[in-house]
């Protein structure tokens, strides 16, 4: 009996210890497998290169250049209208943007994600040991470029254009986030400080980056092209000329003779910076404009008035990039129409350099030079030279040309604000569902700071029209 009991106890011990072999501490020591810790991220060249790609991935996101940023511009202008259920674009279309507008918030947060990642690269890349200085410069140059681009876009959406509208900038953060402390709550800079930050970063990017035929990431010419745009916004015509010239003379780029090929093809010589999408990394423009019957979401379409403008000259090749949807009786753009949603997104391309230069020339009374540049773009589109002669009509012709040339590419609203036309052009814009709409308050040339930012950071002052 006693013997049996002991044997039983032995069996039980074994049973017990079987379970206890996997001891408690082992079970508590779990390691992430899908992700890596902060300490294992940018530690060498490979990690740094991955972080650079990561910045472009942020730009690719649907919150930003994947679709949202372009739509924010074009649906708020007279090019695109909202016809679906997605209230957030309808709010923009009808100049009733609420503080909680989701797409507005998505853009804001995504741009700052790109900035934070750029800040990590700027801080950490100089310390890595397995890359050459040239390699490091390329990486930090890309980071300065992305930081500049994101701040520039943020300023255009929430700050305004110096001298045209707005005085407030945005929180400027130039160090990576490491934890919440008093310094986390950053107040808005002035608009001038914001644009100065963009300029400083772009100049650093220009120095750090090399001339390159790679158009999927920033090059020296991409930095110059963005500088050309920046100076157009700040009214520095000499600098616009200087930087446009530098890009136009870079042999890597041409005003591609076949306009349609820019969008049918990929990474043509027209492109200075083009986000590369593919079947595993798809873009969203097509989905939002193409109707359900063609496999899109069809929440957006062209304003019928814009369709009429764009097709008023039957020779204009750009007018062919529309299609008609008979059930809803609307026109939608077909600029981004590749099956599989693999359309690339054009952030900077050559036509802009010519039109930027034309505008700077016109502003500095070189009307002949302006007309030469403008007509280059017109001829490529298959239409005759402009009849404009006076400074005012030439400028008007350049702006109209930008409207047609960059349709649905995210330029229109900001161009209207920049040129002081927003309150004139955005009047009684017809809509499919509802009454015509008007941008009636100057303050609506900028968007509201998203409510979450105002709730989380008490130093943030809301834009005037949304208080």
């Amino acid at each position: 009996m006693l013997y049996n009991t002991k044997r039983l106890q032995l069996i039980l011990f074994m049973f017990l210890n079987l379970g206890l072999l996997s001891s408690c501490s082992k079970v508590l020591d779990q390691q992430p497998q899908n992700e890596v810790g902060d300490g294992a991220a940018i530690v060498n060249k490979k990690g740094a290169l991955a972080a650079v790609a990561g910045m472009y991935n942020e730009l690719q996101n649907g919150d930003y250049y994947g679709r949202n940023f372009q739509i924010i511009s074009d649906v708020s202008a007279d090019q695109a209208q909202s016809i679906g259920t997605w209230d957030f674009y309808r709010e923009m279309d009808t100049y009733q943007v609420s503080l909680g507008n989701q797409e507005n918030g998505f853009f804001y947060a995504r741009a700052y994600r790109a900035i934070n990642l750029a800040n990590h690269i700027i801080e950490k890349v100089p310390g890595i040991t397995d890359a050459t200085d040239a390699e490091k410069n390329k990486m930090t140059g890309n980071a300065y470029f992305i930081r500049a681009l994101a701040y520039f876009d943020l300023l255009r959406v929430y700050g305004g254009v110096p001298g045209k509208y707005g005085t407030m900038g945005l929180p400027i953060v130039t160090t990576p986030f490491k934890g919440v402390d008093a310094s986390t709550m950053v107040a808005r800079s002035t608009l001038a400080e914001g644009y100065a930050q963009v300029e400083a970063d772009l100049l650093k990017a220009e120095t750090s980056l090399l001339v390159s035929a790679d158009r999927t990431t920033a090059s020296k010419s991409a930095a110059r092209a963005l500088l050309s745009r920046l100076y157009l916004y700040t009214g520095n015509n000499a600098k616009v000329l200087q930087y446009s010239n530098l890009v136009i003379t870079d042999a890597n780029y041409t005003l591609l003779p076949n306009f349609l090929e820019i969008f049918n093809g990929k990474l043509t010589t027209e492109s200075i910076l083009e986000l590369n999408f593919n079947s595993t990394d798809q873009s969203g423009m097509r989905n939002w404009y193409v109707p359900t019957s063609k496999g899109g979401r069809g929440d957006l379409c062209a304003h019928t008035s814009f369709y009429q403008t764009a097709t008023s000259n039957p020779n204009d090749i750009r007018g062919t990039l529309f299609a008609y949807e008979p059930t809803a009786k609307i026109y939608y753009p077909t600029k981004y129409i590749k099956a599989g949603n693999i359309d690339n997104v054009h952030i900077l391309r050559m036509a802009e350099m010519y039109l930027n230069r034309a505008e700077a020339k016109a502003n500095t009374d070189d009307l002949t030079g302006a007309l030469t540049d403008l007509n280059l773009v017109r001829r490529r589109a298959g239409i005759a030279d402009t009849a404009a002669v006076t400074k005012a009509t030439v400028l008007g012709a350049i702006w109209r040309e930008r409207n047609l040339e960059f349709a649905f590419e995210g330029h229109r609203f900001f161009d209207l604000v920049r040129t002081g036309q927003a309150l004139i052009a955005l009047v009684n814009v017809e809509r499919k569902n509802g009454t015509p709409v008007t941008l009636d308050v100057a303050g609506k040339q900028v968007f509201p700071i998203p409510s979450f930012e105002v709730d989380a950071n008490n130093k943030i002052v809301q834009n005037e029209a949304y208080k």
Partner: protein
Amino acid sequence: MRCFIVLLTLLCISAKTIAQDRAISGRVTSADGGLPLNGVSISVKGKAIATTNATGSFKFNIPAGADSIRFDYVGYQSLSIKAVPAADLDLVLQSLPNVMSEVVVTGYGQQSRKLVTSAITTVKAADIANVPVSSSDQLLQGRAAGVQVNSNSGTPGGGVFVRIRGTASINASSDPLYVIDGVPVQSGNLSALGLGGGVTSPMADINPADIESMDILKDASATAIYGARAANGVVLITTKRGTAGKAKINLGMYYGTQDLNKYPAVTNGSTFETLMNESAVNNGKTAPYANPAAAINTNWGDLIFQKGATRNIDIGISGGSDKVKYMVSANTFLQEGVVKKSDFNRTTARVNLEFTPIKNLKMGTNILYSNNRRGRLRNDDNISGSLGSVFFYPSNIPVLNADGSYLKIPTFEHPLAALYETKIGMRTNRFLGSVFAEYEFIRGLKLRSSFSLDYSNIEENVYDNSLTNAGSAVNGNAQASSTNNNNWIQENVLTYNFGIGKHSVTALVGTTIQESKTNLITAIGQQFPSDAFTQIISAAVQRSSSSATSWGIGSVFTRINYDYDRKYLFTLNVRRDGSSRFGQANQYGTFPSMGFGWLLTEEKFMENLKAISMLKLRGSYGITGNQSGIRDFQSLGLWGGAAYGDIPGITPTQPSNPQLKWETTKQTDLGVDVGLFNNRLNFTVNYYNKRTEDLLLDVSIPRSTGFNVLTQNYGIIQNKGVEFSVSGDILRPAKADGLKWNASLNISHNKNKIVKLAAPFNVYNRDLYRYQEGGEMFSFYLHPQTGVNPQTGAIVFEDVNGDGKFDVNNDRRIVGSANPDFTGGFTNNLSYKGFDLMVFFQFSYGNEQLNMNRFFLEHGGTRSTNYSLSQLDRWQKAGDITMIPKINAANYASNLRPSRFMEDGSYMRLKNISLGYNLPSSLLSKVKISSARFYISAQNILTFTKYTGMDPELTGTASNALTQGIEFFTMPQAKTFMAGFNVTF
């Protein structure tokens, strides 16, 4: 810890009994649960000679001249045995049918309800038998005070919203812990597919017919034994086991049909055109439709709704001897949704086996194998689903184009394409098994060790062919995924039960280790050669991905139940947990609780109050924790993959917070249990105050950091409430087959309050919910609409900030919440001769429900989609009094969130009515059948509510835990009529 157990084991030296002349010894236990009975009076010829102690043991010398010895115990049938000397007798007393003598399952043990100091509600098999729901947690609805259950959707096998004593967390989970036969199981959605707002319920893997009881642990005294996982309450599910005796074979079947309670209230073709014309004219445009009266009318609903079938077959065999007890069952269950192509098809098998190979050693196994298939739809918050399209598609267009192709409108998938050009399947294989051994060293000292595995494999496939929106741009779109969830649990529990005089003690110590690993492999294919090819292998574009995550928890725990003279009761629990989810600094947490009880009816001064047969006062206080619902590595700063085209990339995904720790809930509970008239009428009242501190809160941080939130321990939520339940035999027949009527009612009130928050934040599309200090969970944040100007038809809102004008940004506030003021259920069981009737009502009062279907469809012409019938009540001419404004662009502007779409969601529902007939045993015995019952029953056939949507219980955004009470193109619950039988051989 390991040493501790070893030490305790070594201390267990078997005690040897010394036989004496005429001595008799043994132990008395209860038939239900085998608990030792303390204080059984032992008498010879009416003269008391001994009582049993806390372990139920007795030992005395048989008095001279005794023929028989009688054992008496309150609530149990008396037992007499022959007065002959014997040792180690095992005597079992059968309990009388009486609420208070029942045994409740507590974590790691069982206890007589009479001696429990905590708030535990039990739902028995009989209450939930033969109800055609797929998921066992749905069976709790209306059955238990303090438990709120919402069927978020009528989708077969869909997720269920269960809250025990309110919602206690914002960003961590507020779902209860489910423990099946002692094994904490995976109960959260495991589907890898995002098909809209809906989720699936792993609780549907369980066969409801296997369930013997569900015990809901509510207060800290009951739950703290589960420590860090107990803050949201615990549901202990006990499955049926065999009992000694001849093999019993049970066969049950039912068959029924499921149908819609309510069709979508949308306009027909001519009404649609009339309203569109009116909108155009009011907006200063020309009317688009010349002759609305001649419009065609398509009833889209007819194309997708169906009368679904539900059928169930259960077969089980149980029995055993004193050495072996077994229960083996199999189940097949089918439920079809009210929308075509949706169904849930389950097959399960179970073996519960227990045997005694050697004296004092019990071993056994509980095994469930479950295989189920779901036909799923894109429902809820989804523009690609058939149900949404049935609402959105205008009724004035034909179903097909002239060439036979689908006629599609922008944005929405065609209802038929969503059904017939898309295939969505989900198959679950689940194995839930445990083996255990229990050894009794000496009377009352037992060690139980168990090893359990809860394994799920889920295979999902989606295929959208080239005729669908998702597939047309990419020539067919397919996704296949395989999810493996692997949990193992090892537990050891040492229990010692002893008594000294009037003191009796049950003490236990234990350890548990659990590890959970989840792997997901996904493949996506696009560009198929034709629609005949559906497997990704034939796709031109193929993408794949894999991911893995894991967590572990290790704990030690102890509990002491003590009572003095069965009058004064005391319970102490302490559990210490370590979790892999938290950083080194705060990896461990300790969770204690205490409970007190006083059985007044055992006191002398109560003896004269004959009407009061049972009166117990209870109180408890304790601290429990919560760590579920957050990410597995929430405390770490992480970087994840972020490829740019073909170039590998990384980006920060989560900021670090090494200080992160458990959410803690401090709960006070006060309760009274009353039994009147020999326990014919029983009341229970509980008051509780649950305060959850150090919330695992996603604190919104400035987006200028590059992050949206930092998960911090910040904030306080309070849930205070009262629960009341009463049950009684209204009619108690003198004869067994006379008219019997038992009724029970439970009603609960819970008040939820967000006491502290870092900053207010808004949740969900359109900021429909707002979380702020002083507010409640699930509060709707809208523009309070006060009416419509009778002269102009313009919409009128409250001027919230009092600045004399309405503007969308500042005149918005919380206008109500989805939390009910009261929930409960009312059950009547009647029987007469062979007939039985059950009528069960379930209700919810004071909850608001946001009708998003109406929000989208009462669009005043700002959308091209169909109208809700409610649009017809619009303002048309001066003097009209209505809440629906004149239809023009301004009154239906895109940035308005008018409060009129938030409706009173209170309801009372005839949840279940069933009528059965038991064939007389005289007849059955001739054909060797021990019982046979035939029944008909109906579910959800009557709902009393003011809510105008499909179903006041729906939540179309269940995948977002911060939303509730929002109908969003969600499949409503069906009304079911069914018939069935149960036969026992």
